[in-house]
């Protein structure tokens, strides 16, 4: 059985600046369970890339293993994708990015893939500030292996089998901030309006950009008593602010009440506009971000939106002082020192 989407193009679909309609950004037919949160995130990615006029072939999709890690097959079929091994997407992304700095690297992982088997690589890719988007589709369980608790399941949360999780859940967003990530956001698969501008900003961020998206697993963890079910998340979600992504050269037309608006300029001239800011929270201030997360936790709220950001960031290529040209484009004459250099090397070994 193969899964290829029937190609039917609606002639009247609106086109973006590149002349592509939104279906150009779609992927193969999803094989996930109907209603799976992950599919909504895929749809948000499609919409985002369409709106941002991204050339799909200039973006590479990378993932680990899990239902979540399958999703790159379901969006952007004109992009290269790499479904690697469980928990190791960050290393593959690191190598790929080092080879060619000129593409967008879009990483997708699950909470099992990131917070358990892949915790080491997650931590280190942040430390290295790899220029990539890293999305965790977080359902608090291992969907693909049939619903076992993951390390992000909250203590006391109950899964479909009635099993209650005994252990403290790992908060990936706090951890990312702590480790020095310069773009950290949290969202909910059911909130496209928030997710799309967040992904846009993450793509524009010139360093490691992390988005932890709560994405319910309808099959194994959507029951009463689960803190990752649709109902629970909807009831407990609390946004830091509403968010708009404003591409460069766009005239800002909306106006908001004074004092409730914050504009964060991105390096390329685009900006993020945050409205109705949470009290005492400044997205550019790490400590206030940490405080906001902790306060929300105390109140059993799930804080979403942009949590922390530092537009001044130094990604891995800058740290390593690599060539401005993509390393994979260098040719023999730039790479091979040739026989002449070998004469001296040999002489030095005598």
């Amino acid at each position, binding site marked *: 059985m*193969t899964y290829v989407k029937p190609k039917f193009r609606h002639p009247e679909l609106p086109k973006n600046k590149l002349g592509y309609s939104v279906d150009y950004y779609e992927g193969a037919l999803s094989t996930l369970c109907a209603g799976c949160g992950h599919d909504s995130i895929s749809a948000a990615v499609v919409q985002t890339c369409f709106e941002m006029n991204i050339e799909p072939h200039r973006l590479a999709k990378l993932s680990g293993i899990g239902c979540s890690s399958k999703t790159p097959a379901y969006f952007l079929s004109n992009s290269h994708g*790499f479904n690697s091994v469980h928990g190791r997407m960050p290393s593959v992304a690191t190598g790929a990015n080092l080879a060619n700095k000129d593409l967008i690297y879009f990483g997708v992982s699950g909470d099992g893939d990131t917070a358990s088997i892949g915790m080491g*690589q997650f931590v280190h890719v942040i430390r290295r500030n790899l220029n990539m988007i890293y999305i965790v589709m977080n359902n608090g369980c291992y969907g693909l292996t049939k619903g076992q608790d993951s390390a992000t399941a909250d203590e006391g949360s109950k899964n479909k089998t009635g099993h209650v999780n005994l252990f403290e859940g790992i908060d990936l967003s706090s951890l990312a901030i702590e480790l020095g990530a310069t773009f950290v956001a949290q969202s909910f698969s059911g909130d496209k309006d928030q997710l799309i501008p967040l992904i846009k900003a993450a793509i524009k961020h010139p360093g490691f950009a992390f988005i932890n998206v709560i994405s319910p697993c309808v099959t194994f963890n959507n029951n009463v008593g689960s803190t990752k079910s649709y109902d629970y998340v909807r009831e407990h979600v609390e946004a830091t602010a509403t968010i708009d992504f404003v591409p460069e050269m766009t005239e800002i037309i909306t106006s908001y009440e004074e004092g409730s608006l914050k504009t964060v300029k991105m390096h390329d001239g685009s900006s993020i506009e945050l409205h109705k800011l949470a009290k005492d929270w400044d997205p550019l201030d790490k400590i206030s971000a940490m405080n906001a997360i902790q306060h929300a936790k105390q109140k059993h709220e799930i804080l979403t939106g942009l949590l922390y950001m530092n537009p001044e960031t130094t990604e891995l290529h800058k740290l390593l002082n690599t060539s*401005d040209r993509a*390393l994979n484009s260098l040719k*023999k004459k730039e790479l091979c020192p040739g026989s002449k250099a070998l004469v001296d090397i*040999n002489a030095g070994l005598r």
Partner: protein
Amino acid sequence: MSAIEKNKVIVNDFVVRFANVNGTGSASANYLFTKAIFRMGVFVTPKNIFPSNIQGLPTWYEVRVNEKGYLGRREGIDLMVAVNPQSFAKDVASVRPGGYFMYDSSKKLHPEYIRPDINYLPIPLMQMSNDAFTDPRQRQLFKNIIYVGALTALLDIEFSAIEGLLADQFKGKEKLIAPNIKALQLGVDFVHKNFTYPLNFRVEKRDLLKDWIMMEGNAACGLGAVYAGATVAAWYPITPSTSVVEAFSEYAAEMRVDEKTGKNNFAIVQAEDELAAIGMVIGANWNGARSFTATSGPGVSLMNEFLGLAYFAEIPTVLIDVQRTGPSTGMPTRTQQSDIMEAAYASHGDTKHILLFPSTPKECFEMTAEAFDLAEQLQTPVIMMTDLDLGMNDHVCPPLVWDDKREYKRGKVLDAEALEKIAKFGRYLDVDGDGIPYRTLPGTHPTKGSYFTRGTSRDEYAVYTEDSGAYQRNMDRLIKKWHTAQNIVPAPHLYQDKNKHKNGLIFFGTSTYSSEEAMDILKEEGIFVDALRLKSFPFNKTVVDFIDQHEKVFVIEQNRDGQLKSLLMIELQANPQKLISVLNYDGMPITADNILNQIKKSLSLSTPTVKAN
């Protein structure tokens, strides 16, 4: 251990062993000794025998000097330079009858170390150094240089050779030359005053080495990667492989920095572990950069899952395995050829990998460069099987050469233009009938050539499927590719135009030197054998024929289980009765004596009168 012949002058054929404490600066003094003999044009082979420790434990450095060009280890110590009282008992015991024991006599030698059948050369090294130098660090260092001075007198080493080396070493820091010369002279003078010199074995200047060089295999691998155009290196420190990436880093810093921009045409990442290191290498190669990692056995174990992915997803991958004795808490600083099986079949599922077996630094250089060509041509992992002996010891070998006309073989990669010309791109389609499909790199073409990379649940067009037929077709194509590989990997070296003797030897890598020496000795004794040196896996027809055409084939290797022999049995269905293992697995490089003993024992057991045939 046989005795040294008395009253006979032995030229250019002896073994000196230095017994030091690690971390005391003895390494550079000992290197000076070796290099001086090298500069006198005589074959010389040093071996480090060192502990997994930074300071304070016994360490040995063994130097074989040889006129005939035998570069393997030889048993029996002619002269022991003992500067570490901790290991005196062992050191005294290892001297051949008639040999010499030089020691630091600043403290009196305990009577239990007196053997009537060896000669003693007491030199108060510490005392002399303390008297001549005031700085404590200098006192420590120059104690070593004093014994090098003494050795030059005892072994007739040209003082000018040492002076030349010091001049090279301290270029720009000439102030340091004088105290070194002073220490050397102290040693020379002491010998002149107290001993008969030179000894009955000694060095004589020759021109045997011509334009040869002296180099460590790891440095040659690192340089090979620079020449091969590797741009991304990812690694995790582990002895004995660490110096591969260190060398890459140093050579790249010299030769790969853009002159105009000052920016690096390479990237090196010290990964968080070997899993990440190989993941980065796979990611970079997937994206069209030549990328490699270096590790040792424990690292290869950790890389297993990813190696399987690279095999099935068909991503070029270069891995340099500098083998050591296992396991992780084994003797990490001793040598072995014991990762053969681990590397050949690394990972789960039906996997097998290309292996290369270099045996000299020159081959390390050439084969590393070739590994990248093979990996890209075949779109699969290529594992360089070197070892601690080759990687971390200096070896004399012919100079490195590079043909400027040589182009990188980047394999079947479709660019935008090529994609325009084809009707439908199939990532795993066997277009040419050689099992090797075409690949594309991310970013190449807006509408053509993109595909989703995953293990095996896909068809020829990389479309997701769990169809059994598609899986099996893919597996069969991979085997076809393996057969293609057989004909392009480095062919084995045959020592004879035609196989003509009853018995044959098969060996590879660092077992080569001693195997060649053993062959010569057998010949002198009238026992003739054919021989074949393997340079790669998969094996080709030459190996099949070699086994077929001999009654007995001795498979010489440095591990307990005869891993290469197993590989020959598994892959070629070679008759196990025919294959006789000649093994060494004590962590020390194999010697010709050891090989001879094992071969002769086997021959005399079955055919008591094997002579010339």
